[in-house]
């Protein structure tokens, strides 16, 4: 159940209960972001550490390879960039100010 914008206290489920499974997908955590990760393809070894560590499933993977970042959910925590080994010490993810992207 999505709550309509004009709903009042009588219209919503008791006690904040969520009666619709999987509804967290509707909550776009990208709005929290201050910094965003950007990908540098030439440094990427497709180890997918970023995909494993991302707490928001914001790293997109296709055919076992890094495909992109889902900025609707990426909250900018920077874990992917910290964990990224990159190639010969050159990271394949770096964090930049979101407003500069």
């Amino acid at each position, binding site marked *: 159940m999505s*709550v309509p914008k004009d709903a*009042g*206290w*009588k219209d*919503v*489920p*008791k*006690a*904040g*209960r*969520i*009666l619709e*499974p999987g509804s967290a997908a509707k909550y776009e955590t990208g709005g929290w972001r201050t910094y965003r990760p950007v990908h540098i393809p030439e440094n990427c070894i497709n180890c997918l550490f970023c995909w494993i560590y991302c707490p928001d499933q914001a790293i997109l993977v296709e055919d076992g390879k890094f495909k992109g970042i889902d900025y609707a959910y990426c909250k900018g925590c920077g874990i992917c960039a910290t964990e990224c080994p990159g190639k010969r010490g050159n990271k394949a993810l770096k964090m930049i100010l979101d407003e500069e992207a």
Partner: protein
Amino acid sequence: MSIRVGKTGNEAVAEAMRQINPDVVAAYPITPQTEIVQIFSSFVANGKVDTEFVTVESEHSAMSATVGAASAGARSMTATSANGLAFMWEIVYIAAGMRLPIVMPVVNRALSGPLNIHCDHSDTMGARDSGWIQLFSENAQEAYDNAVQAPRIAENPDVKLPVMVTMDGFIISHAMEVMEILEDEKVREFIGKYVPENPLLDVDNPVTLGPVDLQDWNFEHKRQQAEAMRNAKPVILDVASEYAKLTGRKYGLFEEYKLDDADIAIVVLGSTAGTAKVAVNALRAKGVRAGMLKMRVFRPFPAEEIADALKHVKAVAVMDRSDSFNAVGGPVFVDVRSALYDVDNGPKIVNYIYGIGGRDVTPDHVKTVYADLAKIAETGQVENPLTYLGIRE
């Protein structure tokens, strides 16, 4: 046909729990509640109930397990006293906020420190704003009757709030009295089959209970909770009238004892109401128009009904078996005085804090309260708005 038995308050409440046959009881022993849990655990061991009994390592865990079980969809109960209730504190609020219809007998005992195991109401009075319905009992019979009515109140779809059933530690919990209990089938029929709301174990309808709830909706959920407490008042009365048909024993939000034509009256809860009745009878025999209002339901607080019942009285004394330490008076006094604020030419009202840490209160103590009230009624002057009754000066 009711069954006449001799039982202590603890035995009576354990018996009610056996008859309710909850799905889950998670409890930890604490004086003076211990017997309830001990007797109930023997019912479990002897196969007298179908209950899953969870022995926990603390009251925080007792209430946590009870909340978990209730969320899963089980009819769930626990029981405690004093510091046990204090140790549950965090989860006590969560039970109410999650709108789980848990029933918990609380055997009133002084909160430490200094360490004391005897009766006063400081434990449950501290929880008066926790969102639980609170039913007080004068004796073992009332503790039993309140315990049997409690699941019906808690589980009503318009309420869905947890209920505390209180009785005075030792004075009621450990004193044997003759009382009536119902047959098992009658209790089971009365409480009915439990149909939980949004149970976690309904895997075909997966739900999330108790999620984070911030600025955008928390206020609305608290507003619902406030409404549920308002809804509880008529539900408590409905359940009571159904129970009266079954047992002949009538319950309201409070009991009025010789209050109709009273000039002076006291407001009291728990076992002291019995003591006060003795004093009222003695005064009535001498022609003094003394009355009493014994509160049964403290939460929701029946403000309009109390104002209506006391408006004709000249002087009222509220007897508090706990102190709010607010430098004003006890918690019952503050609420009753507030209820009387809108009454034109309402009664003079004073407060007596008494019985702290189990200090005995006798009919003679109560008579001194009535004597003070008679003076106030005559002169219209209040000399002592607050008296510590039975203190060693």
